[in-house]
C-alpha cells in the first residue's frame, strides 16, 4: 500500500499530460473539419472534438479504454476482433519462446562456465547475435522455416527465443561464477567433483541472478513475439493488430493493442517477481 500512492500520482500525471497532448496534436484536424463545414469552433467545442475524433493523431485515454473494453469484455474470445484472442496468440508464442530461450541460455551458460573453449568462443557470438536488428532477421527466420514446412507458433517462438536467451546467458554466467574463492576452496578440500560443485554450490548460488535475468528475458520475449507477427502477413496476434491498425490509420486500435501488450508484459514480469520473492525467501537469499 505504501507503494501505491507514488504510482497513482505518476499515472494521474501521465493521464493529464496525455489529454493535453491529444488536444495539441488533434487541433489541426479539428480546425480543418470546421473550416470545410464553415463553422467557428469555441474552445470547449475544439477540446471536445480533439478528444473524440475517429482517427486522431493521438487518441485520448477514454477512447483507448472504450476500445479495449469493446474488444475484450464485449467480444466473444473466439472472435477475430477480440483482443483476448489476439493476446493469447501472442502470449503462447511468448511463453514458448521464453521457455526455449531460458533453456538455451542456461545450457550456454553452463557450457561457458565449465568449458574453456566455449568460454573463449561462444560469448562473442552471443553478443554479436544481439547487435543484428531483430527486424532484419525476423522475416528471414519466418521465410526459411516456412520453406522447410514449419509454420504457425514455432517460428514466432524462435524469434522470441532469439531475444530472450541473451539476458539468461549473461546473468547465469555471472551467477554460476558467483561463489567466492573460499566456497570453491572448501569444495576442493572435500575433493568434490565438478558435478557436485555445480549442483550443490554453483546452481543454488546463481538463483538471484537467474530471476533478474528471467524478468528481462520475459520482456524481451514478448517484444520478439510481436515482431515475429509482423512479417506473417498480419493474421493474428497483438503484432498483427498493430500492423493492421497502421495500414488503415486506426490509431485507437494501435494504442489499445499497445496498452494490452504492455499490461501483458507487466503481468508476466510481476509473476516472475513473485516467484523470485518466494524462492529466494525460502533459500534465505532474499535481499
Amino acid at each position, binding site marked *: 500500500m505504501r507503494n501505491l500512492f507514488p504510482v497513482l500520482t505518476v499515472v494521474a500525471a501521465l493521464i493529464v499530460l496525455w489529454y493535453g497532448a491529444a488536444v495539441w496534436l488533434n487541433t489541426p484536424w479539428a480546425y480543418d473539419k470546421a473550416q470545410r463545414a464553415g463553422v467557428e469552433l469555441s474552445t470547449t467545442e475544439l477540446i471536445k472534438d480533439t478528444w473524440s475524433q475517429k482517427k486522431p493523431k493521438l487518441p485520448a485515454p477514454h477512447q483507448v479504454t472504450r476500445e479495449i473494453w469493446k474488444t475484450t469484455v464485449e467480444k466473444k474470445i473466439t472472435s477475430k476482433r477480440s483482443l483476448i484472442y489476439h493476446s493469447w496468440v501472442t502470449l503462447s508464442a511468448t511463453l514458448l519462446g521464453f521457455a526455449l530461450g531460458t533453456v538455451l541460455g542456461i545450457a550456454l551458460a553452463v557450457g561457458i562456465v565449465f568449458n574453456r573453449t566455449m568460454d573463449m568462443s561462444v560469448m562473442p557470438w552471443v553478443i554479436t547475435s544481439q547487435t543484428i536488428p531483430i527486424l532484419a532477421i525476423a522475416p528471414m527466420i519466418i521465410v526459411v522455416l516456412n520453406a522447410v514446412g514449419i509454420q504457425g507458433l514455432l517460428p514466432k517462438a524462435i524469434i522470441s527465443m532469439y531475444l530472450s536467451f541473451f539476458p539468461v546467458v549473461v546473468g547465469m554466467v555471472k551467477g554460476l561464477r558467483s561463489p567466492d574463492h*573460499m*566456497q570453491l*576452496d*572448501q*569444495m*576442493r*578440500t*572435500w*575433493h*568434490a567433483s565438478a558435478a*557436485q560443485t555445480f549442483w*550443490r*554450490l554453483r546452481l*543454488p548460488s546463481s538463483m538471484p541472478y537467474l530471476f533478474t535475468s528471467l524478468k528481462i528475458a520475459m520482456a524481451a520475449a514478448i517484444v520478439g513475439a510481436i515482431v515475429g507477427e509482423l512479417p506473417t502477413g498480419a493474421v493474428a496476434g497483438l503484432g498483427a493488430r498493430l500492423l493492421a491498425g497502421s495500414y488503415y490509420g486506426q490509431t485507437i486500435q494501435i494504442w489499445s493493442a499497445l496498452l494490452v501488450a504492455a499490461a501483458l508484459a507487466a503481468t508476466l514480469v510481476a509473476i516472475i517477481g513473485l516467484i523470485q520473492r518466494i524462492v529466494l525467501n*525460502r*533459500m*534465505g*537469499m532474499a535481499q
Partner: protein
Amino acid sequence: MSNNTIISAKNLSLTFQTNDGPVHALKDVSLDIEKGDFVSFIGPSGCGKTTFLRVMADLEQPTGGLVTVNGVSPEEARKARAYGYVFQAAGLYPWRTIGGNIRLPLEIMGYDKADQAERVKRVLELVELDGFEKKFPWQLSGGMQQRASIARALAFDADILLMDEPFGALDEIVRDHLNEQLLQLWARTQKTIAFVTHSIPEAVYLSTKIVVMSPRPGRIADVIESSLPKERPLEIRDSPEFIEIAHRVREGLRAGHSDE
C-alpha cells in the same frame, strides 16, 4: 622425523609472481607436526602463515621443497580426505539448515543416509549445538555459525584439523568461550590441529607448539614448545608461566620486524 610425524615440511618455498615482481610468501620453511599436536602459527600479515596452511591443504602449490601429510603428498592427502579445513568465515550455505550444511561434505563423500544422520547428531553435540539441526544459518549468532563450521569439518573421519583464523571475526568474549571449547574438543577427539591466528593470548592458550613467523620473506622466526599442562582453565592466562611464554612469542615477533 619420527614415526608420529603427521605433517612434515622440508625447505619449503613458495614464490608468487606478481606485477610488482616476485613475492616470497614462504622461504626455506622446515617444520614437523607430531600426532596429537596443537600447533599455532602466529605472525604479522604477509608472514606466510595462511599460505603455509594452504600448502598443507593442497590449496597452493609450493615452488620448492617438500611437504608430506600423513606420509603422502598434500594432493593425495586431500583426495583421501585426510583433513578438515575451517576457514575465516563460517561459509554456511543460507539455503541449507545447520544439519544440511554439516551433511554437505558427507553427501559429497558418499556416506549413507543413516550414517550421515548419526554423524550430524554427534558433531552437533560436540560443538554444543544440539537442537539447532533444523535452524537456518541466519538464525544463529556469528559464534554459533563458526561452531557449526567446525562441526562440519569434524563430521567426516579426518585426523587433521586445519584452521585459518577461525575466530578472527568474533568478539573477545565469544572468542574466549570458543577457545575453551576447542581445547575440550581437541582433548576428546585426539585430532592434530594446525591453527593460524593473529592473537598472542589465543596462540599461547591453545597450543602445545607455537610457530612464530616473520614476513618478507615468510619464514619461521621461532618455535616454542609450550610447558603449560594439557588441562587449561581460562585463568591459566594469569599464571607466570603463561606470561613467560607470551613474552617469548612477543620477542619472536619483534625480532622478525627488526629489519624494518
